[in-house]
């Protein structure tokens, strides 16, 4: 059997496949449907210090090749997460990556400190890229200077691996990724949902309650892949690729572009066992091609 283990800075995973934040709830929701223990890691919904209500409905719209969501980071907050959701996740013995966000740099710092201290949290993923809320991170993710500053603060207050999740909708993604890497982030996640909207022509109004939202699904895969391709050539920390991965072949594309791990989001909504099939598909592909390790195909298109 090929070796699927990958390393994301201080974090070691048994395989490179995990859910994308916000698409897998707090993990427990999918427990009746897939074997969570097989996942490389579990990434939670974005958590904030205090509970967040999210955007008014309607929160989702189907479009060609994707869905536009404006959930708005609705979550139960750190305290309830720690008492109500974390105990279940902990007993799975799968690395837990807690996605988080704040409205200010201080909030990011405090959330990083609090979440990383919780027993069983292997890594935190800072959302500097949510397209759906005014103060949901994207304003911190558009300048290299700001990313550098916030990454430094998060790294200082967190006592676990730190992943920085970035948007591709910036002037220069490479500079921004370099800023996160330069401060010592363990890994970068690329990309978040892409800003989008839809209009109801009968009502002559935007469809979504939040007016605009984030496009996810197969429509954004080429965009995400290109972001990974660009960044890996200039940045020497691991990249987690995410955006429109629907099957194992999509995942292999990201690995070949240079990603060390991948996240599956929209596909789990449509077909809950997707992540398990992606793990099995990567394994079978490596075996068929005679590779011993998944690392052998990582970034192979650049060589």
């Amino acid at each position: 059997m090929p070796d699927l283990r990958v390393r994301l800075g201080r974090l070691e995973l048994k395989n490179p496949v995990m859910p994308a934040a916000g698409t897998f709830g707090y993990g427990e929701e999918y427990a009746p449907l897939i074997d969570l223990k097989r996942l490389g890691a579990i990434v939670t919904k974005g958590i904030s210090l205090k509970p967040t209500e999210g955007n008014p409905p309607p929160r989702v719209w189907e479009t060609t090749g994707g869905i536009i969501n404006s959930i708005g980071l609705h979550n139960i907050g750190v305290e309830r997460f720690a008492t109500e959701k974390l105990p279940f996740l902990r007993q799975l013995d799968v690395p837990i990556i807690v996605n988080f966000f704040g409205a200010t740099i201080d909030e990011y710092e405090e959330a990083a400190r609090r979440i990383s201290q919780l027993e069983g949290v292997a890594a935190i993923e800072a959302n500097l890229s949510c397209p759906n809320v005014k103060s949901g991170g994207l304003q911190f993710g558009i300048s290299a200077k700001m990313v550098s500053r916030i990454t430094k603060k998060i790294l200082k207050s967190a006592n676990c691996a730190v992943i920085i999740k970035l948007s591709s909708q910036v002037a220069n993604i490479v500079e921004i990724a370099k800023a996160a890497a330069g401060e010592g982030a363990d890994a970068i996640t690329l990309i978040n949902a892409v800003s989008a909207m839809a209009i109801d022509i009968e009502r002559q109004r935007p469809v979504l309650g939040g007016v605009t939202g984030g496009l996810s699904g197969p429509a954004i895969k080429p965009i995400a892949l290109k972001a990974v391709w660009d960044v890996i050539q200039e940045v020497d920390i691991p990249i987690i690729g995410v955006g429109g991965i629907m099957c194992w072949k999509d995942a292999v594309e990201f690995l070949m572009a240079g990603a060390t791990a991948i996240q599956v989001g929209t596909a789990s909504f449509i077909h809950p066992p997707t992540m398990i099939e992606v793990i099995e598909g990567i394994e079978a592909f490596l075996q068929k091609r005679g590779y011993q390790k998944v690392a052998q195909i990582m970034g192979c298109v650049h060589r």
Partner: protein
Amino acid sequence: MCRPHYIKGKLIERDRFGPVHYRLRVAVPVDIDHINPGQFALVGLNVGIDILLSRPFSIFEWQHNDGMTTLGFLIKVVGKATAHLADLPLGSTLRILAPLGNGFIDPPAGKGVIIVAGGMGIAALFPLVSRLKHLCNPTRVLYGAKSCTDLVCRSELIDLVGNNLRFATEDGGEGKRGLVTDLLREEIEKGEDILLYACGPESMLVEVASIAVQYQRECWVSLERRMVCGVGACLSCVAETKMGYRRTCTDGPVFNAQDLLWRGDA
């Protein structure tokens, strides 16, 4: 409550129930031994990128034995996914995630019940009517639609409740001309101590809920929302309640009407 199964089903039967209305029967190779009236399924269509998401449909009827379950869905062609289902060849594979949601709770023994159905709301309520007959709760069904061709399962309802069935149509083609909520006012003014269950368009539910408050009757409504995961993970389908946003897929789709805030967010 029964845990949801995610399984490939086979379309085995399709019967026309109206001009653009069909009953689909889908066989799944698992024993789903308990389904509550008002629970639903997500039905996945395998047609690629134009219909990416699975669609929620009330479980209209069900039957299980020996490791097989047949689920019935009542559908009306309103868009591309339902049009696809109306044309899908028998034997086709559908991805089924079911049963989902809470469903209706049983009324107290012997309590009188009024069912208020608007249009396709009958799909969620029909199995409840059947359940109430089994429980021997005196039940009246008020069923409204735009026109008589939108009133489906009429003979099946007569079989269940006989004369305790009244229709309202907006064009007056059948029963009372007007809205089903006009019938509800007439019925509720008789003053009996009854419990209400309703499913239908949002405007109807708002009115039913307001009548329930006015006459101080317990009222349960089943909501329809744009839904994605069906298992409570994505928070797309939330309804606004006095306790904050609640998930239609797992906290609902059936809510106590007095907990809901109606802001036209369907």
